[in-house]
């Protein structure tokens, strides 16, 4: 059973008199432990697809089973609790609460699953340690560099041991050296056996993934599942 199984999901937005087909009839299957890049130009629907996979939005039609469970028709509260338990989000910075320390930011998903304080602290510290920021746990976000902030976000995304980690342009606001560090971290997490989906328009990000899905006008136009190595044509 795949971790993610969508069958013909679509999401349309009305825009004036026309309708934007952000995601159109996408059927996608993701196995546990995959590292996937969803790429495409801006407006190709990749962010909408991520929001659909992350249960932030409901598809207009189609089916979506996460870990074997049909999730489209569940009510908002149950979808919220699935988000806090099974999905880790990595948004573009600034994605941290400015008035909370690094540690408290990492704890946030656990707050909403009702985890006890001591356990929350322990798991948040472990996640921060995993991204190499154990010594920064009591810093405020504005005391951290962009790369460090993004690591905190990554720690937050994996603090619940989610089945699926979704990242939206995780290196969008970072310089090339820092983004390389972040991508290495993703590869480490992938080696740990985590399932990661990265949405990006940057080729150097997509190249690090094990599988690349290309969207155009809301449709999958390419699904490069075969090789685990870089496709030869992507080498500059």
């Amino acid at each position, binding site marked *: 059973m795949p971790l993610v199984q969508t069958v013909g999901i679509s999401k349309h937005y009305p825009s004036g008199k026309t309708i934007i087909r952000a995601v159109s009839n996408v059927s996608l299957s993701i196995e546990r432990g995959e590292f996937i890049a969803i790429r495409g130009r801006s407006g190709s629907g990749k962010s909408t697809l991520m929001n659909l996979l992350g249960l932030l939005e409901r598809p207009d039609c189609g089916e979506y089973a996460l870990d074997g469970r049909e999730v489209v028709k569940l009510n*908002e509260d149950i979808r919220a609790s699935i988000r806090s338990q099974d999905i880790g989000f990595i948004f573009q910075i600034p994605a941290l609460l400015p008035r909370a320390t690094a540690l408290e930011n990492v704890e946030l998903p656990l707050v909403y699953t009702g985890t006890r304080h001591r356990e929350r602290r322990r798991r948040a510290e472990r996640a921060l340690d995993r991204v190499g920021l154990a010594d920064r746990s009591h810093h405020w976000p504005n005391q951290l560099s962009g790369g460090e902030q993004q690591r905190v976000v990554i720690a937050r995304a994996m603090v619940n041991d989610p089945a699926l980690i979704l990242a939206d342009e995780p290196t969008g606001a970072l310089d090339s050296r820092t983004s390389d560090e972040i991508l290495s971290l993703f590869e480490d997490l992938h080696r740990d056996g985590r399932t990661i989906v990265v949405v990006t328009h940057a080729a150097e990000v997509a190249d690090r993934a094990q599988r690349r899905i290309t969207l155009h006008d809301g449709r999958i136009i390419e699904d490069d599942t075969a090789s685990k190595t870089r496709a030869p044509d992507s080498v500059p």
Partner: protein
Amino acid sequence: MSSLGSLQIAARALRVNKLRSALTVLGIVVGVAAVVCMVSVGAGAQAEVSEKIRTLGANLLIVMPGAQNSGGARLESGTQVTLTEDDAAAIRGEVVDVQVAAPLLSRSMPLVAGNKNWMALVAGINTDYLVAREWQMASGRLFTSAEMDSAAKVAIVGAVIVEALFEGRARIGETFRIGNVPFTVIGVLDKKGLGAAGRSQDDIVFIPLSTAKSRVLGAVRGTSREALDFISIKVSDADDFRIENPADVLTARGATARILSILLIAVASVSLIVGGISIMNIMLVSVTERTREIGLRMAVGAKRRDIRWQFLIEALMLALLGGLVGALLGATAAVAIAWEAGWPILISPWAIILACGFAGFVGISFGLYPAHRAAQLDPIVALRFE
């Protein structure tokens, strides 16, 4: 999500904008301060009035002699012998519920002691009068029946007399003169303070009624020696009648305090409502400012009710904070007013609880809409919000 966690989040949000939070709760502060101050001052004033009534003597009524018209000129009351000791005895004997009927005969007389002199009311009484007035002795003793019968030249003096004639040292056995008649002090009365008319009740000398009639007042008044000024009657508590007495003057003063209370209630209600509106305003601003935060929280699993709860707690906390500061301020003001007016200081804990409770109610009612707005945000839209 744990309620303790919500409290921490709310407290932090408020701490970040200290000045803004302080300005926001100003309305609540004023409202609650007004309520607490009003109730406390009202209670103090009421206690003061009750105390005054108590010093007059509760359940006291006074029988005055009728005045007589003589050739169109209204003569001073008491100019005719219309009220006598026999009347007092008759009242005591024949009217049910009368505990004491105390006759009194008085006049302002010059007092002389050593090289000091003083004008004061000299009243002939029997010991029933002090019972009727619930007036205690500070030192010394009451008239004995022998003294009453023999028209002895003994006196019980009020606190003001002690100051005026004896320089504060109330010595039993001291002698002084009323007019030309020498008297011996046998007792000093407790201080009563101001009476209903605003005059000191302690500026008085009591002598036996018999002495007053035969040796002091009867002679100078030029009327019959039997005439009395009035009879003070103390009745037992009874439900089938009501007594109009000097205490009513004070009750009327209590009414003034009530009008003041109504005014303060109006001020309090207006500022609590204004306070509620400013809380609502700031909470709406806060929801807008923190749209991205709300989106983030929702993305990592906050349910709508978690968000609603978070903002509601924040509004409630603001209001309660204002309530607490207001209660403190109101209590301080009440103490200051009571101090200035010489009232007993009575801070009602109920007023504080009630006012803070109402502030909390205002916080919740006016926080509901902003919290609802926050909870209804679409996480996607909220996350994209810059």
